[in-house]
């Protein structure tokens, strides 16, 4: 990785840029291959389904002629390979088929539901980072102290308590008993549809419109689901931050920084933390995966009209297109986030630049 033999100057200047280019293009190829793999996986998942896809469209009372017609329309008479190619072609053109329950193209439904999920995930990730990173650092710096134990308890609980159950308990305590938070949905029902949709994220849209009453209502609604999701991010982020930080604090450069006379604070933030910043990017990308998992359950619990609820509705009504398309979309999204974090890592770490 590093060269300590060159006394004349930076090696970077002499590095043939073609090797870097090759690395980037290899990375691109592997992302594309993975993407194709995702498509194949969801395609075959769809074919595993024990239910007859034709009957799912037509209903059970169907005459032979209609059955055959739909069978042809769905392309089921063609070889699997051809079916996959046309599926892939469709997906690339943004065609994921229609939802059997809403009657809308799935893509359209997903576009409508996505901002709600994104808003929830972003608020949760924000909570997780703002709490988790300082907690992890404090735990590592004061190893064995009460804060370290607290971080450990928070982590263990986050790794053990089922998220849907914590959500239900939150609903029970803060809605049913204390009435501090809104019930299901993104705003109180009488405010619904009052704010013009710009980004699709309620907090942002209401703030743009300057409609603070609705903004408050939206905040009351998002707080609990985001806090529950945020708790799990906090658990994960603090645990990872702690172990990264412990690793850095045991390094020799920390002794050197202290030998210079730097205060504890500068040693921690200007030296140790600077070394884990880039690693934390990867962690936050992974947290995003956990959040996507979590939203499926949390949106169901809180009646949050996002991608997760759309997916569970699809499950309930055996709507294959909806289920497989949503799974695919989440996979692609997660892949995109990971690729982006990987790219940023390479850009930001001086050793891999």
């Amino acid at each position, binding site marked *: 990785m590093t060269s*300590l033999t060159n006394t004349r100057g930076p090696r970077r200047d002499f590095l043939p840029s073609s090797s870097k280019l090759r690395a980037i293009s290899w990375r691109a190829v592997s992302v594309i291959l993975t993407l194709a793999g995702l498509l194949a996986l969801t395609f075959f998942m769809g074919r595993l389904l024990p239910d007859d896809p034709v009957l799912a469209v037509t209903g059970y009372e169907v005459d032979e002629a209609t059955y055959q017609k739909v069978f042809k329309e769905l392309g089921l008479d063609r070889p699997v390979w051809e079916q996959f190619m046309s599926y892939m072609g469709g997906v690339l053109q943004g065609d994921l088929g229609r939802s059997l329950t809403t009657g809308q193209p799935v893509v359209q439904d997903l576009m409508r539901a996505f901002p709600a999920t994104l808003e929830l995930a972003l608020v949760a990730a924000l909570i997780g980072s703002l709490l988790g990173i300082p907690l992890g650092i404090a735990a590592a710096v004061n190893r064995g102290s009460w804060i370290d134990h607290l971080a450990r308890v928070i982590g263990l609980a986050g790794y053990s308590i089922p998220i849907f159950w914590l959500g239900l308990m939150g609903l029970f305590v803060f809605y049913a008993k204390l009435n501090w938070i809104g019930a299901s949905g993104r705003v109180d029902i009488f405010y619904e549809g009052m704010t013009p949709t710009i980004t699709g994220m309620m907090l942002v849209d209401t703030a743009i419109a300057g409609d603070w009453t609705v903004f408050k209502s939206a905040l009351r609604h998002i707080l609990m689901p985001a806090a529950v999701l945020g708790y799990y991010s906090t658990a994960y982020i603090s645990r990872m931050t702690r172990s990264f930080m412990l690793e850095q604090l045991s390094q020799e450069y920390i002794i050197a920084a202290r030998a210079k006379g730097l205060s504890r604070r500068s040693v921690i933030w200007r030296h140790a933390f600077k070394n884990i910043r880039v690693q934390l990017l990867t962690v936050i990308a992974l947290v995003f995966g956990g959040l996507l998992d979590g939203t499926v359950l949390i949106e169901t619990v809180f009646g949050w009209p996002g991608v997760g609820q759309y997916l569970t509705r699809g499950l309930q009504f055996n709507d294959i297109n909806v289920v497989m398309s949503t799974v695919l979309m989440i996979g692609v999204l997660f892949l995109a986030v990971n690729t982006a974090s990987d790219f940023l890592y390479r850009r930001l770490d001086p050793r891999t630049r």
Partner: protein
Amino acid sequence: MSRQPLLSVRDLRISFPGRHSTVEAVRGVSFELGSEKLGIVGESGSGKSVTGRAVMKLLPSIARMTAEEMRFGDRDLLTLSESEMCAIRGRHIAMILQDPKYSLNPVVPVGHQITETYLRHAKVSKRAAREAALAMLDAVKIRNPERVFDQYPHEVSGGMGQRVMIAIMLAAEPSVLIADEPTSALDVTVRFEIMQLLDELIAQRQLGVLFISHDLNLVRRFCDRVLIMYAGQVVETIDAARIDEAQHPYTRGLLNSMPRIHAPRERLPALARDAAWSKDLREVKR
């Protein structure tokens, strides 16, 4: 050495408590350091590095340290708080570590690691600190300081890294320098250059140096006086020039196990050890 010593340590003891047993790394070490080069020689585990770090109070938090006395000039290091120690470290006592590959922060450009020392100990502007850091890079004989200033540690060689390390530690003009195996991790070819550079800088600045090493040959050439450590204790203190006259069997053993150009031997003797060395010393102390 008529005036007050820069550093005086008496009966330093350091132990590391474990789950079932306690490891006593340093057991009653005493020495005084004036404006001289004092070598500490010993095998791995003899407690020499721990002694160096103890003087700066940079031991890991689990370590237990006691001493009858540990003074820098007229200041009692034992009673100083952590923040008071921070004002001593770097400014009055500095330390060069073994391997620049690990002792330089990998994600901070080397120039900033030098200016940091200035900014910590002198009320100067960032610009002035930069100028001073460039001057320091020049003083450690780095050609093209402007360019090196913005480089990251992985972009410089080992020898250059150690020069940067020296620049960082001498930036605030300390009066005591602890050099903990400063050349052991370097290529054999650059070791000599670094030692020469250190020697020059020490002479210019009249530093008191605690030179920690396992290399008796290096120490006898470079230092004025030598402490020989064995199993956490000083077994012998001797002028570097008179080291051949050393009495203690352990020191003699060390000397005998060194190869020499003018007296070739078939096979070097293995180093003998004797549990009595550490025991009777303790009795002598009491």
